[in-house]
């Protein structure tokens, strides 16, 4: 093994304040690994809360004209469920893994701005706490996670829920922007010697382009939140239609943020499976350049599609046509990735580890979710399906089927590195299958409910044919789905104590984080190898067939293996 000695640390000492071990040390930590772990714990705790909210909704909807929840209670719960899952679960999963692993994957010992890192986490957590405080302060927000005006105006909504909602998202947004700044600067300035930009592990690349999306989308949301807060608190007239305000402006501002937001949640999951699938197929990713380029295309295009959320608003045929075109266009780079990921397995040697199973589930479920998206881009189809349970199916197929499933793939893949112990594969497989079956049973029927005309955001529905039975089926499946999470938590807690010791590279993976110990020391790297290809650890483990040597060979026909 030829290790060149490059010590990738700042010339000043790291500003990490160790005040002994225990809780105080965590609260004052600026160590990216600890902060990453805190993000992940936050995600897990809020997930449980968000899931309880979801189960309450499902119980209410199990039967037509049910009275388990009052309309007001249901409306608060569905709004909190959406806001929680998006901002307090999926976002910290992505940011948590990124915070932990970006420095490790590029051979750095810290992020560029450790104190900003800590600040970002704590202000994000503060936002979450403020959101939930609203339950005790006069009522949670009850206008959905998207808070359409003028329903969200004081005149129609005089409890402080919407104010808490706006304030909390402002705070969480500031945290997310801080994290994004950190990711960009770290990736640009702290790579190990030899790691060119086009040799970044795909997870790092996805987070990197994602960070640009965060930097441009969240400020627009902030502008909108500021406007609604000013309307509600200082009687401004941004969205009060009776005094010249525009309800449609809110939709524009929100969705200019909202659409990039969903890619902000999906791209990290794409990055994770781009790491997992090659490792468990024992080959490089199929088409690195296409996958990297397609993510840039998605970032750029995602700012041109927002109004596909507004096809029914009545803004004209030209308007609809433009956004239909861009929305259909954005499906192409997204779809290309799926083919590339699947093709990575062909010719490889596929190991059925739980992480890989989740990655494959993403391919299947995200394809369903993504195809639905294309359906909505077809404007007349949108005129039928928008605001029905078909949309609810779509959002859950992409949020759960891509973002959460990718998160689980990352969890099973990286748990050994973070904790030094293996998660139980046996429990993992049970978790996976109950998750996959439970998820698809719960949410696939939503397609039919949407086609049958059941609108979304309703606390109940009339006893029309099939509606009751399909909803009941979904509720029962949701219970099964919930069991899968219990298994996951059991796996985590059991494996933390009794899991098999992991060693540095239990998966024989390819990227640099697997060079560190499991778990890494406070100073992750004393030395890092000179990077010559996209898979530095593969190169070290396979000196007879390193990537850089193979890539130098004159171009022969690259065919798939038999």
């Amino acid at each position: 093994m030829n290790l060149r000695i490059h010590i990738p640390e700042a010339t000043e000492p790291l500003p990490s304040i160790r005040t002994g071990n225990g809780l105080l040390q965590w609260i004052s930590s600026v160590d990216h690994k600890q902060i990453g772990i805190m993000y992940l714990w936050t995600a897990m705790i809020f997930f449980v809360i968000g899931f309880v909210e979801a189960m309450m909704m499902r119980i209410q909807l199990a039967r037509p004209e049910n009275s388990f929840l009052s309309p007001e209670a249901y409306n608060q719960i569905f709004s909190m469920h959406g806001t929680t899952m998006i901002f307090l679960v999926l976002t910290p999963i992505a940011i948590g893994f990124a915070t932990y692993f970006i420095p490790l994957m590029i051979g750095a010992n810290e992020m560029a701005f450790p104190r900003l890192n800590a600040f970002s986490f704590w202000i994000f957590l503060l936002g979450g706490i403020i959101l939930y405080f609203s339950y005790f302060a006069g009522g949670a927000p009850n206008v959905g996670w998207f808070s359409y005006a003028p329903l969200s105006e004081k005149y129609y909504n005089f409890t402080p829920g919407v104010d808490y909602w706006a304030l909390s998202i402002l705070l969480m947004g500031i945290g997310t922007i801080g994290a994004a700044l950190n990711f960009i600067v770290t990736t640009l300035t702290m790579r190990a010697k030899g790691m060119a930009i086009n040799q970044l592990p795909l997870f790092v690349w996805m987070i990197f382009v994602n960070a640009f999306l965060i930097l441009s989308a969240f400020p627009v949301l902030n502008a909108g939140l500021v406007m609604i807060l000013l309307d509600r608190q200082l009687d401004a007239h941004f969205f009060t239609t009776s005094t010249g305000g525009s309800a449609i402006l809110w939709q524009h501002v929100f969705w200019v943020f909202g659409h990039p937001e969903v890619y902000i949640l999906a791209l990290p999951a794409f990055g994770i499976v781009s790491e997992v699938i090659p490792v468990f197929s024992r080959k490089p990713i199929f088409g690195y350049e296409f996958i990297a380029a397609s993510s840039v295309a998605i970032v750029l295009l995602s700012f041109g599609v927002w109004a596909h959320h507004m096809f029914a608003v009545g803004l004209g045929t030209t308007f609809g046509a433009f956004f239909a075109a861009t929305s259909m266009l954005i499906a192409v780079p997204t779809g290309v990735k799926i083919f590339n990921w699947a093709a990575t397995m062909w010719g490889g040697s596929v190991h059925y580890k739980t992480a890989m199973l989740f990655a494959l589930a993403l391919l299947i479920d995200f394809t369903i979710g993504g195809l639905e998206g294309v359906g909505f881009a077809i404007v007349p189809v949108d005129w039928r399906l928008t605001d029905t349970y078909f949309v609810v199916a779509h959002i859950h197929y992409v949020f759960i089927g891509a973002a959460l499933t990718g998160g689980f793939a990352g969890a099973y893949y990286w748990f050994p590195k973070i904790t030094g112990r293996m998660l139980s594969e046996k429990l993992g497989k049970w978790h996976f299958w109950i998750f996959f079956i439970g998820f698809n049973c719960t949410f696939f029927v939503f397609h039919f409910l949407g086609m049958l005309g059941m609108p979304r955001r309703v606390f109940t529905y009339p006893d029309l044919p099939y509606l009751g039975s399909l909803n009941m089926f979904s509720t029962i499946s949701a219970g099964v789905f919930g069991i899968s999470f219990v298994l996951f938590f059991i796996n985590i807690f059991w494996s933390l104590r009794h899991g098999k010791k992991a060693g540095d590279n239990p998966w024989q993976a390819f990227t640099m984080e697997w060079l560190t110990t499991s778990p890494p020391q406070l100073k992750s790297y004393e030395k890092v190898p000179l990077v010559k290809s996209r898979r530095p650890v593969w190169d070290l483990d396979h000196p007879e067939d390193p990537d850089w040597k193979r890539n130098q060979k004159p171009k022969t026909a690259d065919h798939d293996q038999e």
Partner: protein
Amino acid sequence: MMYFFVASEAFFFLALIIAYVYYSHPGGKLSDTARFLDVKKTAIFTLFLLSSSVTINVADNRLKKGNHKGMVGWMVATIILGLVFLIGQSLEYAHLFEIDITINKNVFGSAFFTLTGFHGLHVLIGLIVLSIIAYLIYKDKFNKLGTSALESASIYWHFVDAVWIVVFSVVYIGSII
């Protein structure tokens, strides 16, 4: 890094500017309320803000040459010029409040005060940051990171200026075309 941060803030202001443009032309015509803006006075105060960008550049140069006293002097000039701008903004606000034009008067008021208000807030925060940095460099509390701190702050300050040029053009010059 500051470049990325200001790029991010640029999107925030862009959203507010678009809202302003939309709301300052209800029904396609310039709002009557816009006629009460004092373009001449604000133009003069704008010059103060723009000159503060020049002075901060000089301060940065002084620091790079190791002239701490010179840097502090020019920083103080920058801060004073910035303060004058803010005072001018406050006078404009006071004048508008007197004739009952407030954030809740109409959509123009909402958009105008939000856009200029957030700009003013960014100026204020900038002045605080500049003061702190100038003080710390003067007292030699920074090691060699001091130059990059001032450089970053300068980028932010120039950004605040650039935003004002756009806002002034759109709001004030836009009100007299």
